């Protein structure tokens, strides 16, 4: 097993492979596209896995539903049980939820339902703020709870919802909701557009109990450099950008808000060696 090689899972219709590879490289990790036509037995050689965004299998039935039934996901579930990190972004998150890897008690407890938005429907893209919550999640644990991370969302089915009323509060209490939508001031987002999809408990990301499998709807791989920060973002990140511009700094070299998730993965893999 090559600890530092991360597989970027390519199902047909996935479309964020390139920027996901760049995100891993930025964090010092080697990434490799793993195409769906390869045998599942070859998955074992990778130290971690990213399921990138896109429209796997054309979103047939429901977003993520078909990829979740791919034999590759069965193999991936076993490796996740061993503790190998798995990050699902957007469509990748939908796959992990449909496959039951998140929240991960061997059955499907959650769904990513159609966005609920006033006076509009379907796909919606914008930058939002995510607040870090206390969690054992390997991708966010370097961030103190309360940290605000501005990130872009772009999806039509991103509303975390549970089959039972008690499920989400239980997950939150267990530290399995590491990311929640918030306002620029850090208050929990309860209304559109700060809450872009109507998710229960404003959940933007949910992980398994061990914290090594994270399903998140926002796209950190689109916010790797400080220069990529949306101009309408307020607060500390926009001040950081301004200072860099005025000081003649390099907006490509400075990390954007999304890089931290991949750096968290890199730190975890280094520790595991």
């Amino acid at each position: 097993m090559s600890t530092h090689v991360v597989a970027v899972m390519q199902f047909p219709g996935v479309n964020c492979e390139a920027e996901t590879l760049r995100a891993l490289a930025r964090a010092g990790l080697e990434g490799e596209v793993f195409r769906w036509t390869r045998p599942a037995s070859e998955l074992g050689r990778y130290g971690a896995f990213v399921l990138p965004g896109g429209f796997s299998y054309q979103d047939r039935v429901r977003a993520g539903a078909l990829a979740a039934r791919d034999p590759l996901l069965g193999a991936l579930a076993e490796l996740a049980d061993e503790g190998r990190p798995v990050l699902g972004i957007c469509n990748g998150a939908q796959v992990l939820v449909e496959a039951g890897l998140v929240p991960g008690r061997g059955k499907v407890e959650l769904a990513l339902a159609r966005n609920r938005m006033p006076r509009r429907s379907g796909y919606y893209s914008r930058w939002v703020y995510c607040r870090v919550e206390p969690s054992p999640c390997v991708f966010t644990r370097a961030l103190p709870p309360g940290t605000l991370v501005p990130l872009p969302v772009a999806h039509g089915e991103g509303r975390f919802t549970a089959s039972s009323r008690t499920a989400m509060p239980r997950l939150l209490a267990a530290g399995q909701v590491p990311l929640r939508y918030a306002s620029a001031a850090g208050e929990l987002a309860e209304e559109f557009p700060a809450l872009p999809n109507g998710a229960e408990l404003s959940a933007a990301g949910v992980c398994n109990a061990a914290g090594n499998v994270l399903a998140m709807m926002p796209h950190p791989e689109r916010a790797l450099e400080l220069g990529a920060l949306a101009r309408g973002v307020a607060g500390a990140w926009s001040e950081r950008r301004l200072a860099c511009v005025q000081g003649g700094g390099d907006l490509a070299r400075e990390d954007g808000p999304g890089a931290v998730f991949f750096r968290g993965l890199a730190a975890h893999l280094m520790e595991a060696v």
Partner: protein
Amino acid sequence: MTTLTAATGAWTTDESRDPAAVSRALRARGVALEAEEVTLLERLLGRPPRWAEAVLFGILWSEHCSYKSTRHLLKRLPTRAPQVVIGPGEDAGVVSLPAPCDDLVLVLGHESHNHPSQVLPVEGAATGIGGIVRDIVCMGAEVVGVMDSLRFGDPAGSVHARDVMRGVVQGIADYGNALGVPNLGGDTVFDSGYDTNCLVNAMAIGLAPADGVLRSRVPQGPGPWVFVLVGKPTDESGFGGAAFASGELGADDQRGAVQLPDPFLKRVLNVATYEVFRRVRAAGVPCGFKDLGAGGIACATSELAAAGGCGAEIRLDDAHRVARPLPPEVLLCAETQERYCWVVPEAFAPELVRLYEEEFALGQVMPGAGARVIGRAIPEKRYRVEWQGEVLVDCEVDAITTGRKAERPSRPRVRAEAKPRRRRAADVRGALLTLLGGEHLGSREYLYRHYDSEVQGRTWLRPGEGDAAVLRAHPERPLGLAFAVGGNPHWCAGDPDLGARHAVAEAARNCAVVGARPWALTDCLNFGHPEDPEVMGDLEASLDGLAAAAHALGGLAAPGSPLPYVSGNVSLYNQVGRDAIPPSPIVMCAGVLDDAGQALGLAPTSAGHVIVLVGEPREGLEGSTYRREVLRERGGPPPPLSLEHEARLQAFAVEVARGRWAAAAHDVSDGGLGVALAEMLLAAAPEANLGMDAQLDVLGVEPAVALFCERPAIVYALPFERLPRFSQAARDHALQTWPIGSVSAHGQLRMLLPGEQRVAWTVAELRDASQRALARRWNEEGA
């Protein structure tokens, strides 16, 4: 004319003594050949054509494919400059990039999908994106962005105009989002002139290695060369699409002529094709590549052969296709989407087929999709197609490339004089809210939030954040690429020459405002019937304006050279009965920034920054949205435009961004200074609570002129300490500047107007007005 099989004669020598009657009979069977073309075709072949040949030539000689009304006129546009690698004539244009990206080339394409989008808005717009994307890919490039210029009917006028708007936006979103290509914006205009003919212009942008550009031709050398058809199984969809786009929309159901989109298959097809690019480059395999569009297999294979100076033998039986039986002329000419055609050495074909069919398992992605060898190149310059042992097409390749030219008389249109402006006390407060709250100048956010503008992770300035969108050309290099569009139909209706000049100036200025040097242009000429001399008069005047502006604005890319047109399209017959659309030249400008980090957005960043207006003095309200939407006056000419001044203004704008002197910049055009200042505030984070205090009394004109004059200018916000350098640069470029106020932290736009008049708006109130317009139209039901 009773025989209906593909291999038998379309007409007899007896019948062709009356070519007009043959033309009418063909038209009744869906083939559009004019009477003189009936005669020409029989002369070229030395016999009456077979039915499949008549179908093929009907497509080749359609307006859509042959540009027969305009090809000779398009020579007026400048197409040469040092940065041009491949100009108009191929599927897309190619320009070089400056260091450190001189090992890359930028590929630009521009297409219209107007007729299909009017008939089936979702599918029409989606296949518009799909088609232009294929044009980029077939040059050997990876697609990094799409844009769209949309022209819709009056949304207040009919539910149909709103349905078209909703459908087109849905189609663009469904296709582009799934394909994984960021949408970089564009523009949207509403006018009752588009009630029966919407416009959907799609532009696409690609990047390729400078030494990896592919050409659509059989390569030189002994080969042997084979044709490999890849992608979706051929079906009947889009059969007759070229003829459909070359005539007036009729009462008949024409939905069958619209192609069917499949972005999911296209994503896999493109990823597999990019892998082919890498392999043929690594192994040095010579090849030709072309997308399948109008005319399907027949046009793609015959044009590949003709461009390579050879002939071709196609075995239609070998093409993968849907299971249901279809007439061979349909298989030969249908516009089934998501297909490409390779020409490769016979020895490489098995690897190529295996890559698509096994490594990327196209047949699992979509039943019937795959890659098949369908024919070979032959040294003899003949084009032959066989089907089940019968010859369907057999002609000289030169017959295929025989250009058609239709002489279309033109005359200048006599324009109605603008009615003199009624004097009335201007309520500028209400006027600004009216303008921002209407669909003409209201925020486009409601629409572009349907689009993914960030996939691929290259986008540094998104729609709504700046006057142009900005991408990074390469993840490890600073070079930025900017893209913007221009084309104001109200101005083009008032004066097509001057309106076209403005279209180019606006697109180039939008690039310059963010800090990019205008680098190359694409265009589409969207007009009515070419048989109408006044339509042709408008078209010729537009071409003159497009040429004049391009000649004046190329200096920032290459001193002394024009800004080159590298790709373009002509869409005629956007007319029903007597109602032609307004003259609608639409221009895209690509620009380059030395450093994407210099890209100036339009949102002010800090209270205390000074606001400075640079450009033409505020004089006159010609062509202004204020006159149309507030005073309700129609017609009249656009604002004057000095191209010499415009060139200096754009050079200044690039210098400002390069010096990092300013924090924000915005073009003053539609809506004038009042709308520009409001839009700047609306682009800032609401939580920052920024406002502006503007002293417009210094402009020395009446309030309405100060706020709503649309003469070219740029408004900047910058730190006070940068003002001396900034002002000196403006003087160096002989530009006038007016410091007009400062950015505040009180969340209001406050103005001091001439005559001690004070007026104020809260930014929240401006935001409500601006966001309401399109959300309301989108959700409106009923007539």
